[in-house]
C-alpha cells in the first residue's frame, strides 16, 4: 500500500502505483522533521530522567529496610494504569487556574499564572513529566534485578583491597547494572517512540504542533486526512527507524557487556 496513492475514504477511485513517490514526499516535508524533533526531544529527556531516577531508586531500595516490599508496590502502581486515562486526570491536575500542580509550584516559588499544556515552551515538558512519573518504576525494577544479581564476594574482595564506597560503586556496581539499565532503556525507547495514547489525551499534539510526536502525525494523516498510501509509507519509515535504532542499541549493549 505504501507504493500507491490509495485513499481509504474514496472507494471508487482508481488505485495507481506511484513507486517511491510517497517516501520522497515524506522525507522532503518540513513538518516531518519537526515531528521527528519533537519525538527525539521527548525520548531524550524521558529516557535520561528515567535512567537517573530509576537507578537512584533502585540503589536506595537495595539497602534492605523495613516496609521495602510494600513501598516498591506503591511506587510501581502508576505504571500499571492506562496511559490514556492517566493523561485525562493529569489534564485536570495541570488545569491553569484551578489545578493542583500549578498551586504546588506556586506554593514553593511564586511564578504567577502559567499553563503547562497550553504553553508552547512548557507543553513538551508536561508530557515528559507524566511519562517519567509513569515509567520510572520500570527502569527501577530492572535495575533492582541487576543489583540483586551482583555476587557479594565482589564487594568483599573490594573491601579487602580497601576500596572506598565510591570506588566500589564506580568499579563494581555501575558496570554490573549498566547492561540491565540499557535493556530497560531499550524497552522504554521502543515504547516512547510509538507513544500515542498519553500524548493524544494530554495535549492532542498541540498547542500548534509543538508536541506532535510521530504517532500523532501518523494518525492525522491516516485517519483524518485519509491519505492511506502516504501514511502507510510513513508507518514503514517509522518501523524501520525503530528497528534500526533498536539494533544499534543492542549492538552497543553487547559491546558493553563483553567488556
Amino acid at each position, binding site marked *: *500500500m505504501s507504493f500507491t496513492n490509495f485513499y*481509504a475514504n474514496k472507494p471508487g477511485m482508481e488505485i495507481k502505483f506511484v513507486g517511491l513517490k510517497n517516501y520522497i514526499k515524506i522525507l522532503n516535508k518540513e513538518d516531518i522533521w519537526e515531528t521527528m524533533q519533537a519525538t527525539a526531544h521527548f525520548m531524550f529527556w524521558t529516557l535520561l530522567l528515567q535512567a537517573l531516577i530509576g537507578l537512584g*531508586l533502585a540503589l*536506595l*531500595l537495595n*539497602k*534492605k*529496610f523495613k516496609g521495602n*516490599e510494600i*513501598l*516498591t*508496590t*506503591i*511506587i*510501581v*502502581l*502508576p505504571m*500499571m494504569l*492506562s*496511559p*490514556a*486515562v492517566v493523561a*485525562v*486526570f*493529569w489534564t*485536570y491536575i495541570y*488545569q491553569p*487556574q*484551578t489545578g*493542583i500542580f500549578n*498551586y504546588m509550584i506556586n506554593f514553593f516559588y511564586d511564578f504567577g499564572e502559567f499553563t503547562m499544556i497550553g504553553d508552547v515552551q512548557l507543553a513538551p515538558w508536561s508530557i515528559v513529566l507524566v511519562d517519567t*512519573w509513569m515509567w520510572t518504576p*520500570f527502569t527501577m*525494577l*530492572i535495575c*533492582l*534485578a541487576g543489583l540483586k544479581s551482583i555476587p*557479594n564476594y565482589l564487594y568483599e574482595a573490594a*573491601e579487602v583491597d580497601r576500596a572506598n564506597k565510591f570506588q566500589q560503586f564506580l568499579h563494581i556496581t555501575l558496570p554490573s547494572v549498566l*547492561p540491565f539499565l540499557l*535493556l*530497560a532503556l531499550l524497552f522504554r525507547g*521502543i515504547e516512547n*517512540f*510509538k507513544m*500515542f*495514547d498519553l500524548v493524544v*489525551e494530554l495535549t492532542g499534539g498541540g498547542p500548534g504542533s509543538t508536541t506532535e510526536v*510521530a504517532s500523532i502525525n*501518523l*494518525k492525522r494523516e*491516516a*485517519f483524518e486526512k485519509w491519505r*492511506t498510501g502516504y501514511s*502507510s509509507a*510513513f*508507518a514503514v519509515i*517509522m*518501523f524501520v527507524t*525503530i528497528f534500526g535504532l533498536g539494533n544499534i542499541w543492542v549492538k552497543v549493549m553487547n559491546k558493553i557487556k563483553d567488556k
Partner: protein
Amino acid sequence: MSSAINSVRSPLEPSSFSRKSAATLIIIYAFIALVPIAWMVMTSFKSANDAVSYPPKVVFEPSMEGWVNLFTQRSRQSKEYLKSLPPPETWYEELVRSRQMVIAGPSRFLGRFLNSLIIGFGSTFLSVFFGALAGYAFSRFKIPLKEDLLFFILSTRMFPPIAVAVPIFLMYRKLGLSDTHLGMIILYTMVNLSLAVWLLKGFMDEIPLEYEEAAMVDGYTRLQAFFKIVIPQAMTGIAATSIFCMIFAWNEYAFAVLLTFSEAQTAPPFIPTIIGEGGLDWPAIAAGTVMFLVPVMIFTVVLRKHLLRGITFGAVRK
C-alpha cells in the same frame, strides 16, 4: 570475645544511618508518586464547585455527585416541573433533584465498562491458551530457525499501533469485524500473543523434562502429558502471563479509539468524553477514572510477587 565480633557489623551490611536515610527518600518518592492518584480519588467525591475551586481544597464536604453523574444521564428542568413530580424515592434521585435536574436514564458508562471486561477476559483467555501451546512447542521441540522465529514474534510488538491500525481498519471493514467484540478480541489476542509466548516459554523451560517423560512412559500421549503434567506445573507462570495480558487489554487505547465507535467501545476512549453542563464534569470523569483504575491497583497489590517477577523476567533471563 565472640560477642565483640558479633556486634561488629559486616562492612557489606549498610549502616543503620544509610538504611534510614534510604527509607526516608523512598517514602518521599512514594508519597509524591501517590499524590496524583490520591488527588483523583478525592476529586471523585467532590461537588462540581469544589472540584474547580482555587486554592485546591484538601478538606471538603464529600458528595456523591460525580458518581451519580457517571452512571446517569440527566436533563435540566424548571422548578415548577420539579415540584409537580412525586417526591424522590432514592438518595441519588434526591441529589440530582437538588441540582434542578431529573434522571433521564442510565449513562453509557456501564456498557463501556462491560465491553472492557468482555474483551479483556476473552483476549486474555485466547492468548494464554495459544501462548501456552506455542511456548511448550518452543521450549520442548527442535524447531528450525527457532531463535529467528522467536525474535520475529517479539518484533510484532515494535510496530506502532497506529501504523498497524490502517491495514487492520481496512481488513475489518471488509470482513464486517469493525466495532464488534469479536474483532477486538482477535486483535488484542494477536498483540498479546507475542508476550504470552515469550513469558510462557520461559516458565516452561524451568519445568524439568523428566516429569513428562515419566508420564509418557506410563502411557500418556504427549497432549495428555501437556494438559495433566505441564499445565499444572506452569500455573504460576500462566497466572502471571494472564495478568499481563489482562492489563494490556484493559489499558489499550490506540486500537480502541480507532476501531470501535459505539457497540464494542471500551472504557479508555470513553472516559475523556464524559462531559457535563458547562465544560468538563471533573468529578464524574474522576469517578470514571477511579472505577476504571481501582481493579488494576487491587490486582497489582494482591499479585505483586508474580507481577514483579514477570516484569523483570526478560532481563534476568539474559
